[in-house]
């Protein structure tokens, strides 16, 4: 049975319980048990496709439902299960951005369709040298050439860079304009240098010098490129907020269980008031993060660029602040076992660490919220 939400006219209200989405979330959670740490392409992707997780994110006219809201639910459930996959960056971000490009381009249409039916995976090169994403003013340059372009690019730790079939590369033209170039992995393998991030995310550095591109490989320029890049940054940040909430939920649940079962001085740890209060504070921080992650998802589809940026940045500030604190407290309350790499706890701890840095720490989000 497919849990794919039925096509409906409107996305649900932000906090309104929605049966169709709840069913989706429950079935998703059940069907991914035990898939953490396994190969996402063979183990996870078919399951997600079967449940309609990709198709749900397509535009409504192609049967999608709930947009960023549905994406957030999937991201949260996946992260809570400890899964590291390109769902957030590919399905929730790049695929949905490419679907917004209104152009008669057969190849682009094919790529979008292959992303929506999970046959392909795409990513975006967010970072260069700078610790924050370099989207609108990258140093990577695109120069006109007879019949096309030449791209010189240095991109750092592109998530799933060596695994994704397609990579979007933010560039600037010699004149300083913004653009988005499309790179096909099959043709650029030699330019990719893989690495692993602290949370286990596979990534790759990209280094291209005067790499030839055709006209059609430049997907957008100028205002359209700007609009798409800003949308992707917000969509990805919102998806990561949802992932953070999932990882925090896992840590809070694990901690509750541990406090109840670990005994010292003849009683469970949960008998110590000092720990009880701190545990409640963890739940409070998580509650705030849940609220704001939901709001961020709602803003991705509903708001104009300025308001969206402010809302997502504010949400990310709250979520990131909670993520630091919740992960630190969960580890502390586990004692030494929390330091052991063997337990899932450490993986969630590092997941939250990484999620809290992609777009800078909470200070960076606070800055963005007020900019």
């Amino acid at each position, binding site marked *: 049975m497919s849990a794919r939400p039925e096509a409906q006219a409107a996305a649900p209200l932000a906090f309104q319980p929605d049966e169709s989405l709840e069913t989706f979330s429950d079935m998703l959670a059940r069907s991914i048990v035990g898939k953490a740490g396994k190969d996402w392409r063979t183990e996870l992707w078919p399951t997600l496709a079967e449940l309609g997780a990709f198709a749900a994110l397509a535009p409504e006219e192609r049967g999608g439902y709930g947009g960023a809201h549905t994406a957030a639910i999937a991201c949260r459930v996946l992260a809570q299960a400890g899964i590291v996959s390109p769902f957030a960056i590919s399905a929730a971000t790049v695929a949905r951005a490419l679907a917004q490009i209104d152009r008669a381009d057969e190849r682009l249409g094919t790529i979008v369709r292959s992303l929506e039916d999970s046959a392909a995976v795409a990513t975006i090169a967010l970072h260069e040298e700078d610790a924050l994403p370099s989207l609108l003013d990258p140093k990577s340059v695109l120069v006109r050439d007879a019949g096309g372009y030449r791209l010189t690019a240095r991109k750092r730790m592109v998530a799933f860079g060596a695994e994704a079939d397609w990579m979007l590369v933010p560039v600037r033209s010699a004149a300083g304009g913004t653009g988005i170039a499309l790179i096909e992995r099959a043709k650029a393998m030699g330019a990719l240098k893989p690495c692993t991030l602290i949370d286990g995310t596979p990534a790759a550095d990209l280094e291209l010098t005067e790499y030839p591109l055709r006209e059609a490989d430049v997907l957008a320029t100028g205002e359209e490129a700007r609009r798409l890049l800003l949308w992707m940054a917000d969509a990805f940040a919102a998806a990561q907020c949802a992932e953070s909430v999932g990882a925090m939920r896992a840590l809070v649940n694990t901690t509750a269980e541990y406090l109840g079962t670990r005994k*010292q001085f003849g009683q469970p740890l949960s008998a110590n008031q*000092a720990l009880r209060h701190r545990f409640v504070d963890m739940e409070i921080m998580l509650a705030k993060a849940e609220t704001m992650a939901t709001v961020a998802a709602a803003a991705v589809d509903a708001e104009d660029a300025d308001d969206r940026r402010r809302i997502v940045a504010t949400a990310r500030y709250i979520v990131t602040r909670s993520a630091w604190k919740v992960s630190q407290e969960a580890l502390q309350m586990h004692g030494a076992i929390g330091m052991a790499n063997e337990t899932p706890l450490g993986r969630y*701890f590092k997941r939250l660490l990484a999620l809290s840095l992609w777009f800078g720490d909470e200070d960076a989000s606070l800055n963005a919220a007020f900019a």
Partner: protein
Amino acid sequence: MKMTIGTLGGTMKGLFTPEEQAFREEVRAFVRENLPPDVAERLKSGSHPVPLRSDVQRWTEILHKRGWAAYPWPKEYGGPGFTPVERYIFEDECAMAGAPELVPFGLKMVGPVIMKYGSDHQKAYFLPRIVRLEHFWCQGYSEPGSGSDLASLRTRAVLKGDRYVVDGQKVWTTSAHEADWIFCLVRTSTEGKPQNGITFLLIDLRTPGITIRPIITIDGRHEINEVWFENVEVPVENRVGEEGKGWTYAKYLLEHERLNFGGMGFCKRELARLHEMARTTMRGGKRVIDDPLFRTRLAALEAELATIDLTNLRFLREAQAGRQSALHAPVLKIMSSEMQQAISELQLRALGTTALPFMPSDAATNRPHQYAAENYCNMRKTTIYAGSNEIQRNIAAKGLLG
């Protein structure tokens, strides 16, 4: 931005006597001339939160020639007989310059216990070997079921003739894989209060029946272990003091361990690294150190570190004048461990995504990497070990509120 704490490296007036000031200069000059640059470089790169045994060995030998290898010890046992403040200055200068910390398990833990409670033979045999690091020690206290509640420990030792036969398991044992000897708390009786059935044994790790298994920590490194004992025979002369009195000796040691928790030199070295990270990392096209929010965090951190450093010094002055307070040990442990974590957290914030690649073998596109994320993970240990901060707060509260 100038490091406020830099002025505390002995230059602020009214904190140290002229003799102490001269001593600081002497240590500084010695370290500058004798610390091997590659050893310092390894620590300053952040790649080794626990220094390599080979590096500690080299530095120990260098200090030994100068008579400083047993720097925390009194003269009668081969130490230089430093005052508490001299010791603080010594550690400060060594750590800031990037010298590896000497093995605390021998020098600061089992050494003082042997001095106070050991037999003449134990003193004559073990103490000189600790000084030259001929014996690298580790500490076998914690067990899977006994962490904060250490007195519940279950590793059994049964006296058979002139040997104890030890069975059980220790866990989280720092450096057991590099060590030669382990000092253990073992249960010799299940009668009466649990504290009364504990005995303090010195065990040669080469004894048959001991198995050491690595535990990899979340930063991906190997510094702690499981240590299993199966029919391990320990000569009775390797018991410290009396049977059943191990808890008394352990409490003495724990006090020693906590009073020694200062770690201010380490904090200052990490602060210097933090400054470098903030100067060399770009965030939004600006150097991180020029970011107003970051600067606020950095200034607050430095004010805090200066305060802790000075409080540490104040406690030492008071102790030197015979005015010890039961609060000193728990307060120092709490302040220092939380400061170590705060610095590592700000390092991670300074580097941001630059810190994300895990232990890169080829850090070409990611220089300077500095292991900030790995070390942030690693530093979480400081509020857990050596008596967790919750237990320290319980101790302090008991002292204050009854």
